[in-house]
């Protein structure tokens, strides 16, 4: 069942690099990451690649296979025709370090900018009471394995480096939605989402949802609901008027 595959793997570093051709054996049932490992063990021992669990649970082996952001451990080789050349490059929205490894610190910087969960101050540990229906929306977003493929594919930063300071990316806009929907979070995060994290830049083209290996409905369940919440706060005169009147009465 084994055959030789034609791989085109990007090799290089911040100074430059190119797609390098390799011929590597492929056996039944293997995924792209297996082939990269075989390449390391037999032809290119210093080929840099990040990986951890190899089971689609840690989100380390993000790369672009035939131009599409994917987890290498979850991309089966039998999805490609045997003779077809397969290109593997690092994520292209982030600075490359070496070979398939990129500098993803942008994401950690953004993570640190999102104000943390803010529980009611008078609630002691063990006294938290939440209904299952109230936690379910946020739970979906907490399935995120932080592979950063959504960040990689989002054209707002992928195609516009200059937007990086003003735009947190789908993963962290989803984090804001997660906290805004957390039944016990006491902060109002709507203006912040729009003004500080660039929710208005999102034009809901859904690539984040398309690439998510956890199948989280990022656009439909996090970004659009968050946009609607922002409308409540910023752009809807009726809701604004209603809240003014109610607060007075």
């Amino acid at each position, binding site marked *: 069942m084994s055959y030789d595959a034609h791989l085109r793997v990007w090799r*290089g570093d911040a100074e430059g690099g190119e797609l390098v051709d390799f011929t590597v054996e492929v056996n039944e049932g293997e995924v792209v990451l297996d082939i990269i490992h075989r390449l390391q063990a037999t032809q290119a021992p210093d080929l840099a690649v990040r990986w951890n669990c190899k089971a689609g649970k840690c989100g380390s082996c993000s790369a672009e296979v*035939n131009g599409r*952001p994917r987890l290498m451990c979850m991309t089966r080789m039998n999805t490609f025709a045997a003779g*077809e050349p397969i290109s593997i490059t690092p994520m292209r929205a982030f600075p490359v370090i070496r070979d398939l490894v990129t500098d993803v610190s942008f994401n950690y910087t953004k993570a640190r900018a999102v104000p943390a969960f803010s529980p009611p101050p008078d609630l002691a540990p063990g006294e938290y009471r939440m209904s299952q229906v109230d936690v379910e929306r946020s739970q979906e977003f907490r399935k995120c394995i932080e592979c950063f493929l959504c960040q990689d594919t989002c054209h707002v930063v992928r195609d516009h480096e200059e937007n990086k300071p003003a735009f947190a990316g789908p993963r962290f806009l989803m984090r804001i939605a997660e906290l805004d929907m957390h039944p016990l979070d006491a902060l109002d995060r709507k203006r912040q989402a729009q003004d500080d994290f660039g929710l*208005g830049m999102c034009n809901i083209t859904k690539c984040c949802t398309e690439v998510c290996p956890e199948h989280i409905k990022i656009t*439909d369940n996090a970004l659009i609901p968050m946009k*609607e919440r922002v409308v409540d706060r910023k752009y809807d005169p009726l809701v604004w008027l209603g809240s003014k009147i109610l607060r007075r009465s």
Partner: protein
Amino acid sequence: MSTQTGVDAAGRAPVAARTLRTDRWWLQPAITVAVFVAFIIYSTIRAFANTAYYAAPYISPFYSPCLATNCIPGTGELHLVGSWWQLSPALLVLVFPLGFRFTCYYYRKAYFRSFWLSPPACAVPEPHRSYSGETRFPLIVNNAHRYFFYAGLVLNVILTYDAILGFRDAQGHWGHMGLGTLVLLTNATLLWLYSLSCHSCRHIVGGRLKHFSKHPVRYRAWTFVSRLNPRHMQFAWVSLVWVALTDAYVALVASGTFTDPRFF
């Protein structure tokens, strides 16, 4: 042409090819453009035509409600606009469904991808030098989607009423049904499905709440809309095409090209 700020920005892994995608990523935007352009051409012609939009008891959805005094008699008495209006009465009404669809979260995806190429497909570079999304005029107006949704609901009620009138014959007697009745009913149903599966609708009925457990009725409403919402795209396409077909059907009957088959 890709820009220096995108995937070719300093520090990122340079690759000569514009995209390494090997699938037919251009197909989806191409189909979208083709269908939209066809619809726009057809609807523009029909909206300005100001003819063959009423074949009792059927009225074309492009012309309902007919608000001007220059409407064909029998198309309603709701003449909010006076006799000074000389253009096609369709233009008075169409602005609402068009606004609803233009600001719709699904259509935004569709036109941003296929017309504005921002991006044309996932991980395929877009051709623009700068990008500000929906943060400025005019695209910031997309935030008004919910108002078009409200207007859309009013229109849905009227078009449903029109469909029910399809159970009267040309003389106004109840107990009639023709193929046109079925066409109008389907049209109204699809428009309801499209409207109710809308993301703004989902937010308004319950999505805005922090605690579903305290609002069981709204939670059930939200759950219902949430079940429809994943098919919003399909409803958007089918209802769009069906509106045009409905109008075409009425036009064919009104112009005498085709005789409406009567069931009873």
